[in-house]
């Protein structure tokens, strides 16, 4: 009996976004990283083209993140106090494809560092490593408008990926992306309709969607993961079916979000029977990340070296077929 061919035939291709500029392209990166370009759902290499494999961005911050568990700080080591050295370690020892720098030091409710200091950190990281850079603000919108402007100028021409444009600050992000030749993350609060809205607004403001990566706001496993997973899927299916406003690569900010939930913070003295945190923490990060990998994430940020190794292995295995 003939086996019926059940392969889906999609009509559209996801846009490609290239992060990082080499010397010939006006930057100083040793290489660039291209994501997107799929003509099929994640990992279905038998059904369509997946020209660029999903990539891993090593998570760093300009100050030691509040609340990170000891097991993670120890795994990072002393370099946690120096963003440049931290980035170097992630590149040299953990072989990450990019660095994802969160500029929480500028948070007015925290260290309240100046935009100039943040820009210095961005420069220091760019000097220390030659992989492409993603950098994010501190999530205080007023602070971020000035902060991202200054950091963007400091990294002019390096084609960084900057997070993130929202329904309210899209004009600022679009303008600095254009002025300094960077790519922009469009972020929506776990809401596919707002996700599309931000893309339309950026496009209407004159920023090309060829320079945008979507972020649905990342949820850790057990904390709304299934909602975000579904949005990733719906965005990708809409894009493959021909909705150009949704045919964009996607980023899951796993490394930043997972290390806030009790499963990744508390050891078995508080959670008896849950196993040692030393194993459970990286496992929680790895499981969350591999979930998003299957939902359609093109970029995954990860913090723990063991998670980075495990997720890379998963990508290798799943892309090998």
């Amino acid at each position, binding site marked *: 009996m003939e086996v019926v061919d059940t392969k889906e*035939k999609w009509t559209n291709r996801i846009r490609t976004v290239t992060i990082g500029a080499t010397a010939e392209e006006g930057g100083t990166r040793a290489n660039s990283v291209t994501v997107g370009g799929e003509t099929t759902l994640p990992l279905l290499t038998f059904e369509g083209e997946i020209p660029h494999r999903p990539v891993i961005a090593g998570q760093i911050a300009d100050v030691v993140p509040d609340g990170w568990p000891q097991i993670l700080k120890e795994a990072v080591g002393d370099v946690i106090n120096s963003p440049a050295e931290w980035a170097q370690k992630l590149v040299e020892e953990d072989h990450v494809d990019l660095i994802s720098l969160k500029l929480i030091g500028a948070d007015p409710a925290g260290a309240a560092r100046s935009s100039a200091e943040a820009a210095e950190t961005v420069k220091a990281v760019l000097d220390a490593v030659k992989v492409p850079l993603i950098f994010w603000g501190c999530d205080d919108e007023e602070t971020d408008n000035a902060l991202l402007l200054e950091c963007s100028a400091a990294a002019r021409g390096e084609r960084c990926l900057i997070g993130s444009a929202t329904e309210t600050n899209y004009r600022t992000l679009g303008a600095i992306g254009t002025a300094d030749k960077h790519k922009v993350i469009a972020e929506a609060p776990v809401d596919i*309709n707002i996700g*599309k809205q931000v893309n*339309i*607004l950026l496009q*209407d403001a004159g920023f090309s969607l060829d320079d945008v990566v979507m972020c649905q706001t990342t949820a850790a496993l057990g904390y709304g993961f299934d909602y975000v997973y579904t949005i990733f899927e719906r965005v990708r299916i*809409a894009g493959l079916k021909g*909705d150009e406003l*949704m045919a964009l690569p996607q980023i899951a900010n796993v490394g930043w979000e997972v290390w806030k939930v009790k499963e990744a913070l508390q050891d078995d003295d508080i959670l008896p029977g849950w196993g040692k945190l030393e194993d459970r923490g990286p496992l929680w990060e790895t499981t969350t990340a591999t979930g998003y990998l299957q939902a359609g994430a093109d970029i995954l940020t990860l913090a723990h070296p063991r998670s980075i190794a495990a997720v890379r292995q998963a990508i290798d295995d799943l892309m090998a077929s």
Partner: protein
Amino acid sequence: MIFIGERINTGFKDIKQGVTDKDPAPLVHWATKQAEAGAGFLDVNLGAVSADPADMCWMIETVQGAVETPICIDTNKPTILAEAIKVTRPGMLINSTTAAPEKLDVMMPIAAEHGACIIGLVMDESGTPKSVDKRVENAGMIVAKAMECGMEPDRVFLDPIVMPLKYMQDQCKMILEAVRQFQLFSDPPPNTVCGLSNISNGTTQKSLIDRTFLVMAINNGMSSAICDVMDTELVNAALTAELMMDKQIYADAYVRK
């Protein structure tokens, strides 16, 4: 919804003049306007102004020099098509073939060879069908020929042939039913298209009638229309209908301004 801009047609005086004088200005103007309004293809029609393929090639090259939007080569003459397709960028749409074998056997292999999509008018040598069944039968011939030539069914844009509401009022619901039945040919289904302004021919409420018909056609699966893409009320009604059919994801800013 794939909107096919209808304006670059020598039926319009300014375009006719442009072609006669070899003045690119009106063609460039309408190519740019329609592309900005979101046209997925730009129909280019030489009409009866000339039978010289070189004139059609000049029109296409002029439009392609102004915008990136793919071309819909609008001619029923294989000799003009054969020359025009050589200067047209990939991703073009051919307008059109019918189900008549002598036409289908010539046009479909050209589409297949050039990786083009093609509009299939569901008429044959006996003329335009008046029934649903005959429309579907002719559509089946066109889709079958496409598949025989190795083309995916969705590279065919089936045109049920829209008749003027004013003069053939009974035809409207048959056209809509035919569109619905075209969806059953394959998965994903063939595309469907219509020359929208035919529906309002001779009426005093052209825009309202075009818009209402398009919304009803979308409800039955219509995926494309050759129309006035500058009519924002028309375009926004179509986009809204597509939201209601769950073909697009809603966003507050979905309407075109």
